[in-house]
C-alpha cells in the first residue's frame, strides 16, 4: 500500500475512533495520530520527490479500480511538482488545525474532531488525485463536514452562514462538475485520468468554441469556490462564523481546490478558452478582488471578518497570475497558494486566540493586549507582515513573481494590483495596532477584570509555530519548492501551447 493512500485513509479511519466510545485520552491520542500521519507523509514525500522516478511527470503513481473502470474512473494517485507542495501544505496546515482544535474547549469535542478528520482525509485526497473525478470527489468529501461544523460549532449567524455557504458552494461545485464532465466527453478520451486527458488533447485539441464554453463554465464554477469577485459574498460571512480550525482548513487549503483545478486541468486542456477569458478574469480579479474587496476590508470592525475579507482579496492576486497564462505567472500562483495556505491559517488561528483573551472580535473594543500577551502580538505582527507580502516570508515570492509575469500582459492592472499591497498594509497594520497597541479600552478593562489575559499557551503556540516556521522556511529558501514547480509547470504548459485547436488545424 502506498503512502498517498495511507495519507488519505488514515484520518478517515481514525475518525471512527471518535465514535467507538473509547476512553477520552485514547481517543484524543488517536486523533493526534490521525492529524500527524498526513503531515509526516507530506513532508517525507517532499524530501523524496526530487529523487523519485516519474511517469508522465507524476511521482508515486498508483491506480486502484473502484468498480467504475468501464467509464474511465479509477482511483489514480500521484504527485507532480504542482501537487506535491500543496499536498504537503495540506498535511501541515491540517496538523496545525487539528492541534488547535484538540486544545479548544469545544462542546462535543469528539464529534468536532471526527468531522475535522474526515475533512483532512478529503483534503489530502484532493491534491493526491490524478483522476479528475476523484479530485472533485475528495473536494466534496472535505466540503460537506465544513457546512456541518459551521452550523453546529459556529459563532454569530452560524445558521445563516452555513446555509449561504452550502448553497453558494454547491452551485460552484455543480458547475465545475458539469465542466469536468464536458471535458470528459468533448476530449474524446472518455476517461477522467489527467494524464490520459492531456495526452488525448495533445493529439488533437478541443474545438475553440468548446474550449471557450467549458473554460467559462469552469471559471465561474471554480470562481465561486475560490471567492472570485462578485461571487465571493459567502466567504467573509462563512469564515466569520466558522470555528477557527474549520476556517483554517477551508481558507488555507480547501479553497485552493478551484485554483488548482484551473492550473492542473482547465488551462492545460483548454488553452484557447483560457486566452479568451484571460482579460475578463484579470479585470475581475484586480478591480473586484484586490481593489473593491481591499477597500471593504479596510472598513471592517470585526477582526475575523477582516481576516476573511483579506483572504478573499489575496485570491485576486492568484487569479491575476493565472490570467497571465505564462510559465512565470502560473509558477507564482502555485507558490502563492502554498504561502497563503500557511498565512491565512495562521491569521485565523491567532484571531481566535485573541478572541479568547478579549471575548470580542470588535476592533473598537480592544487595545493594549501587547502588555498581557507579548508572544501572541509578535506572532500576529509576523503573520500580518507575511500576508502583506514582506520579503522573508513565502508570500513575497509568490506575489513578486505574479507581478513580474503580469506586468508584461496587463500593465495597468498590475499597477493597481501593486497598489493593493498598500491597501493590505493599511488594514493589516491597522488591525495589529488596534488589537495590541494603543490605550486599553474600557470594554477590555471589564473583560480583564473577569478573566485576566494570559499569553499564548504551548498548546496554542505549537500549531502557530508550525505555520510560521513553514512560512519563514519557504521565504528564505524558496528553492525548496520552486524547482519542482518550475519543472512541472514547464512540462505541462509547453506541451499545451504546442497544440493547435481542431478547427484551426482542419482549415
Amino acid at each position, binding site marked *: 500500500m502506498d503512502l498517498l493512500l495511507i495519507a488519505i485513509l488514515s484520518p478517515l479511519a481514525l475518525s471512527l475512533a471518535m465514535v467507538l466510545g473509547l476512553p477520552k485520552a485514547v481517543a484524543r491520542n488517536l486523533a493526534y495520530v490521525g492529524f500527524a500521519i498526513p503531515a509526516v507523509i507530506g513532508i517525507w514525500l517532499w524530501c523524496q520527490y526530487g529523487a523519485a522516478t516519474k511517469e508522465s511527470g507524476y511521482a508515486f503513481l498508483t491506480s486502484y479500480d473502484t468498480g*467504475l473502470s468501464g467509464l474511465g474512473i479509477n482511483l489514480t494517485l500521484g504527485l507532480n511538482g504542482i501537487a506535491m507542495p500543496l499536498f504537503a501544505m495540506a498535511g501541515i496546515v491540517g496538523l496545525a488545525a487539528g492541534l488547535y482544535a484538540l486544545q479548544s474547549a469545544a462542546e462535543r469535542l469528539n464529534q468536532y474532531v471526527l468531522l475535522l478528520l474526515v475533512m483532512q482525509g478529503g483534503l489530502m485526497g484532493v491534491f493526491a488525485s490524478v483522476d479528475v473525478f476523484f479530485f472533485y470527489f475528495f473536494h*466534496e468529501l472535505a466540503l*460537506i463536514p465544513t457546512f456541518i461544523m459551521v452550523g453546529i460549532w459556529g459563532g454569530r449567524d452560524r445558521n445563516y452562514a452555513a446555509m449561504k455557504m452550502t448553497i453558494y458552494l454547491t452551485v460552484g461545485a455543480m458547475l465545475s462538475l458539469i465542466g469536468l464532465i464536458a471535458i470528459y466527453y468533448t476530449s474524446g478520451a472518455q476517461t477522467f485520468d489527467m494524464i490520459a486527458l492531456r495526452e488525448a488533447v495533445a493529439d488533437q485539441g478541443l474545438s475553440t468554441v468548446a474550449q471557450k464554453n467549458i473554460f467559462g463554465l469552469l471559471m465561474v464554477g471554480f470562481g465561486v469556490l475560490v471567492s472570485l469577485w462578485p461571487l465571493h459574498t459567502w466567504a467573509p460571512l462563512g469564515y466569520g462564523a466558522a470555528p477557527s480550525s474549520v476556517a483554517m482548513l477551508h481558507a488555507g487549503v480547501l479553497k485552493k481546490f478551484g485554483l488548482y483545478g484551473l492550473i492542473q486541468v482547465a488551462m492545460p486542456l483548454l488553452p484557447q478558452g483560457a486566452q479568451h477569458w484571460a482579460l475578463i478574469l484579470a479585470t475581475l480579479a484586480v478591480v473586484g478582488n484586490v481593489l473593491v474587496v481591499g477597500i471593504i476590508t479596510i472598513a471592517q470592525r470585526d477582526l475575523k471578518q477582516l481576516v476573511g475579507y483579506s483572504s478573499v482579496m489575496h485570491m485576486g492576486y492568484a487569479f491575476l497570475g493565472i490570467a497571465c497564462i505564462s510559465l512565470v505567472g502560473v509558477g507564482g500562483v502555485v507558490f502563492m497558494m502554498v504561502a497563503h495556505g500557511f498565512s491565512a491559517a495562521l491569521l485565523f488561528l491567532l484571531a481566535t486566540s485573541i478572541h479568547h483573551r478579549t471575548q470580542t472580535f470588535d476592533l473598537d473594543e480592544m487595545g493594549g493586549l501587547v502588555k498581557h500577551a507579548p508572544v501572541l502580538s509578535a506572532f500576529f505582527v509576523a503573520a500580518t507582515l507575511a500576508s502583506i507580502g514582506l520579503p522573508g516570508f513565502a508570500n513575497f515570492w509568490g506575489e513578486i513573481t505574479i507581478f513580474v509575469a503580469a506586468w508584461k500582459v496587463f500593465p495597468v492592472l498590475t499597477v493597481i494590483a501593486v497598489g493593493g499591497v498598500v491597501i493590505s498594509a493599511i488594514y493589516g497594520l491597522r488591525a495589529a495596532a488596534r488589537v495590541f497597541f494603543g490605550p486599553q479600552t474600557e470594554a477590555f478593562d471589564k473583560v480583564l477584570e473577569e478573566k485576566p489575559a494570559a499569553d499564548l499557551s504551548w498548546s496554542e503556540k505549537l500549531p502557530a509555530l508550525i505555520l510560521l516556521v513553514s512560512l519563514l522556511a519557504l521565504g528564505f529558501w524558496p528553492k525548496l519548492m520552486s524547482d519542482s514547480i518550475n519543472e512541472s509547470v514547464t512540462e505541462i504548459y509547453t506541451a499545451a501551447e504546442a497544440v493547435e485547436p481542431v478547427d484551426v488545424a482542419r482549415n
Partner: protein
Amino acid sequence: MSTELLQQAAASNQWVAIGPELMVGCLALFLLLLEIVLPKSRYEMIPSIAIAGLLGIIAGFIMNYHTSFIGETTFNGLLKHTGTGQFLRLFFLLAATGVSVLGVVALKRQAMPKVEFFAITLVVTAAMMLLAQSNNFVMLFVALETITVGFYILVSYTRTNPLSLEAGLKYLIMGALSSGILLFGIALLYGAGGSPGLTASSADSMNFDNLRVFLYANPDNIVAAVGIVLVLAGVAFKIGSVPFQIWIPDVYQGAPTPVSAFLAIASKAAGFAVMLTLVTVFDGHQKLVIGVLSVMAIATILFGNLAALTQHNVKRLIGLSGVSHAGYLLIGVIAAIHVPFAVGAICFYLFAYLLGSLAVFGVMTHVSGDDDAEQDLDHYVDLAKTHPFLGAVLGVGLGSLAGIPPLAGFMGKLLVFLAAFEAGLYGLLAVAIIGVVLSIYYYFGWIKAAFFPQWRPPVFEGDDPIPDPPRQPVGMAAGIVLATCALASVFLGFYQGPLGAWLGLS
C-alpha cells in the same frame, strides 16, 4: 386453436422461472392461514415470519441470480427474463423486507389489524416482480392493477385517521383515472397494431415484440402515436411525475409511513421498470417519445423541487423530493434510448435511492407520534444530540438523496448525468443541475433542524411547557435495517465494485 399451438403454449409455461414470485405469493397466503390457525396472543410472530420468509427468498434468489432463463421469453410471450429484470426483482424483494420491518415499528402504535399489512405487501411485491419482466400489455396491465389495488388498501390502512382515508380516496381516484388513460392508450396501440391493412400488423399486437416491429414499420401512424402518449401518461402516475404527480404530497402524508416508503421506493421503481421496457418497444417513434419524456422530465424536476422548498411536513417534503428524483430518472430513461449503460445507471440510481429513502423513512417512523400524518420539521430538534444513531442515519440518508459525495446517491446522479451527457441532453442536464441546487436547500434545511442547535422560545412560569417531540426507541430489527442502509450508502459511494459489475458499468 389447434392442439399443437396449445401444446406449444403450454410448453412455454416455465413455472420455475417465476419461482420467487410464486413463493412470495404463497408466503402471503400462508400468513393469512396463520391468522386463522394461531391464537390471537401469538399474532406478533406473524410479521417475523413474513420477514424471515422474505430473507429466505432473497437468499435463494441471490444464489440462483444467474438463472438459465435470462434472455428467454416464457408463458407464451407474456414474460421476458432480462438482466435488468433480475436486478429489479431483487430490488423489490429488498424493498419489501425493509418496508415490513418499518411496518412492525409503525403498526405497534396503532390499533389496527397487524397481519393483513404484511400479506398485502407481499402480494404487491410479487406483482411488481412480474411487472419488471412483463413482455405483453395484458401482463403489464394485470400486474400494474394488482399493485395499484394493493396500494388502495395500504394507503388507507389506518382507517380511523381521516387523513389516511382522504389519502386513500385521492389515490383511488387518481389511480383509476390514470389506469383508464393507460388502458385507452393500450387499446389504441392494440387496434393500430392489429389492423390488417397496415404493414407488419399482427394478430397478437399486445405482445411487445410484435408491437415493436409494427411501430418500426409505421413511424407515422397517428393512432399509434396517440396511444404511445396516453400509455406514457398513464405510467407517469406510477413514477409520480407530471402530469400525475399532484396526488403525491397528500397521499404520502396520509398514508402510514411504511406505506409512504413503499410507494416512494418500490412503486416508483416499478414504474421505471415499465418505462425502460416501453422505451425500447416504442423505439420506432423515438422522436415523439423523447419529446414527451423531455417535457415530463423538465416539468417534474421543477415542480418537485419548487414545491418541496416550502414544506414543513416532512412526509410531504420527502414525497415532493421523490417527484424530483423521478425527473432525474426520466432523464436517464431518455438517455437509455441511445446510451446502453444508462440502464445500469438507472438501476444504480434506484438502488442508491432505495438505501437513502429507507434510511430516511426508517428514521421518520421513529420520530413520529400517535398521529402518523403530523410529522413536522420541528420534531427533529436536537435529534442528533439526544439520538445520535437516528441522527447519523438521517444525515447519511438525506445526504445520499441530495446527491452529496461520497454517498451512493451522488454516484447514482453522476452516472445518470454522464449518460445524459453522452446522449447530448444538455438542456435537460441544465434543468437537472438547477433542480439539484434547489434540492440542497430543503434537504439541508432538514439536516439543519436535526443537527444544528436551534433557538427555542423561553418558557415562562404559568405557560404550558413545550411538549417534547415524539421519539420511539429503536428495536433490533429496525436498527439493523437502518444501520445497513446507512453503511451501504457510504460504502457504495466509495466502492461500486460488485454492483457496478452487475450493472455493466465496469
